[in-house]
């Protein structure tokens, strides 16, 4: 309120000073996260928008990535929701269910809506009313990066497309061989260095488990008990625990660059599409990009990233929509996104992105979006689902009992759903 009050005061003071000639500007608050490069890119777009619309004042509110959801909760409590907010796609269901967001279809330029890829539409859609609540320039995926030199040394087969991804037997066989290879300290980096309480765990490890027939929650009955603590999940997580026990996985405390660090101690990396930019800069041609391995019968990959929604309390939804449309079409913003190897969520952006086009180095990652991507459970209990799951994974990766950890997680999730009376109308989704 302070800021709004201040700007209102400032505006009225200006009004008095200029004898009523100047009009009060409409202020639009935009809450976002991002590393310094992105923050600058957003700020520049806002400045260009203000230049084109002199009667609008865009106020960017930065909230650090790691504490974004906490900061968002604080904004809700203080009734200070921004007009536009960046949000992590899996949390969308929670936000819409709680009544923070409004449908954006009527507010966004039609050509942008037509331009969206299927997985981009999927990440912004609320499953109950099938309406679109958020839109983004980008989407995301995780692939398997390989050190070409090491893979050739063990004679590994290098898959060219999602359809011939490594099977579990191949994958574990190669890990075993790599572990004995000269120069390799760890066969694979799964980016445990991101920390034990980050969305990365659910985002990146979830698909491997789903590939093995497991899931975080039953997506029809919305019950975790019987699914997350079921046999398939226990087996899949025990398999991952086994990789850690054998010393195949880069430990948490070794940072997140062991794939391209001095001497290249990690042979494989299960990393996000954004990792390509830094890795290729360091490793040049010695890097191959492969689809995620098929642990079970089907391959599964993640999707979802930070997208933009308009809050239900916004007093200027039209202007907010206008700004979002402006942002997503902004040429320089797109150029910056390209330098960050951003994963396209718009067809026109994909077309201008040689990385992801047919034959491009990240083509496999883009292929996953249409063939194997499965969203994280779109349920309002997601904050608890992911928190409980992270807790269990940390326990299991550090030699805890898989069954015990998963049972505790499933219980926690079901309790949360029960506490919220089944999150109606999700309790009717049979």
């Amino acid at each position, binding site marked *: 309120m302070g800021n709004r009050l201040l700007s209102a005061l400032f505006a009225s003071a200006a009004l008095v000073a200029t004898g009523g000639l100047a009009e009060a500007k409409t202020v639009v608050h935009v809450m976002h996260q991002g590393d310094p490069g992105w923050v600058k890119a957003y700020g520049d777009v806002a400045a260009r928008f203000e230049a084109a619309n002199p009667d609008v004042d865009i106020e960017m509110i930065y909230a650090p990535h790691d504490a974004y959801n906490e900061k968002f909760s604080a904004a*809700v409590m203080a009734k200070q929701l921004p007009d536009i907010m960046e949000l992590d796609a899996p949390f969308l269901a929670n936000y819409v269910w709680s009544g923070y967001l409004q449908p954006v279809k009527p507010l966004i330029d039609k050509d942008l809506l037509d331009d969206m890829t299927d997985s981009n539409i999927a990440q912004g859609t609320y499953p109950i009313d099938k309406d679109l609540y958020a839109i983004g320039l980008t989407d995301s995926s995780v692939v398997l990066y390989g050190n070409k030199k090491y893979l050739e040394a063990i004679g590994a087969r290098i898959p060219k497309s999602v359809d011939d991804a490594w099977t579990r037997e191949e994958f574990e066989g190669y890990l075993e061989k790599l572990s004995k290879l000269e120069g390799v300290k760890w066969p694979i980096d799964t980016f445990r260095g991101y920390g034990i309480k980050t969305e990365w765990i659910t985002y990146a490890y979830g698909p491997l488990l789903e590939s093995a027939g497991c899931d975080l929650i039953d997506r029809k009955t919305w019950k975790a008990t019987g699914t997350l603590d079921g046999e398939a999940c226990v087996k899949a997580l025990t398999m991952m625990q086994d990789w850690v026990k054998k010393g195949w996985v880069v430990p948490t405390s070794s940072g997140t660059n062991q794939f391209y660090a001095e001497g290249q101690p990690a042979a494989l990396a299960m990393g996000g599409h954004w990792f390509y930019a830094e890795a290729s800069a360091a490793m040049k041609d010695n890097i191959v990009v492969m689809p995620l391995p098929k642990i079970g019968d089907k391959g599964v990959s993640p999707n979802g990233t930070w997208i933009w929604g308009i809050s239900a309390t916004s007093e200027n939804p039209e202007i907010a929509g206008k700004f979002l449309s402006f942002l997503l079409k902004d040429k320089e913003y797109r150029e910056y996104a390209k330098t960050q190897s951003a994963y396209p969520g718009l067809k026109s952006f994909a077309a201008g992105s040689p990385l992801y086009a047919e034959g491009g180095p990240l083509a496999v990652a883009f292929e996953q979006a249409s063939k194997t991507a499965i969203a994280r459970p779109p349920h309002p209990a997601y904050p608890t689902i992911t928190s409980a799951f992270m807790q269990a994974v940390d326990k299991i990766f550090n030699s*805890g009992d898989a069954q015990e950890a998963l049972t505790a997680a499933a219980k926690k999730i079901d309790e949360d759903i029960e506490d919220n009376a089944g999150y109606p109308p999700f309790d009717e989704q049979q």
Partner: protein
Amino acid sequence: MTLQQTSTPALRRPAKRRDRQRLWQEMAMIAPAFLLMAIFLITPFLLSFWTAMTNQPLVPRPTPVRFVGLLNFERVFTDPLFWTSLWNVTRFTVWVLPLQCGLAFLTALLLHQKLPMQNLLRGLFFLPAITSMVVVCVIWGTLFQYPSGPLNQIVGFLSGGTIQPIDWLGDPNWAMFSIVLLSAWQAYGFQMIIYLAGLQGIPEELYDAARIDGASALRRFWHVTMPGLRPTHVFVLVITTIQAFKLYTQVAILTQGGPNESTETVVHYMVRAGFEEQKLGYASAVSVILFVIVLLIALLQRKLLRRFDV
């Protein structure tokens, strides 16, 4: 003193009025403090006790908030992770207490000597205590790095390479110990200052008398310094215990409760429930329980202080 007691009744009446006046003055002076305590301590506690008995979420939700009685407490007590976190802070306390207080005591003894540049030295030793814990954690996080962080290099050098690098923060057997090391180092300055004050409070005459009686330096330490510091010891131990039970920042920054729950603490557990899982009712239940634990320690403190006649 005795003169006043024998003063005439004529003089006593205005004295009585003065007493009443003084009572009012004192009450007026206490009032702001009491008001602040009521607003910021008592009311929040009552509110959190009430919240603990509801299913209140962190942010408003479409489903109604219900009174759930003692369900949250029941859940806290049946959650193995809560007991793990309680066990962890106890473990932390038992380790950090001798280390931190011992370090504080030794440096206080050292700095109590007449050294050149005494004040500068005192300031230097106090420096970690006024450095923000967040900054300290970030720096120590780098020191702890595995496998080739500075600390591991020192250990490797000192052991002539016989000790393999330790995964300070990533190994469940080491993580809590690493946090103990860093915490003791960061905070011992506070206890050191209290010890210094305690040392300065021991009358010099006692030492002089001991010297005349022919007591050696060691005997003077055992029979003058140590008894003189008894109340200080008790105070420092109890204060450190209470602080240790509230361990949070180091864990939140460095280990987030892991690996394998080895550094999960009660406060961290509470924040996780309240902010990440958005269960304010549940988190309030944990906070009430923590309050009771700290209260018990404080009561113990009073008892101990009384026994030592302070």
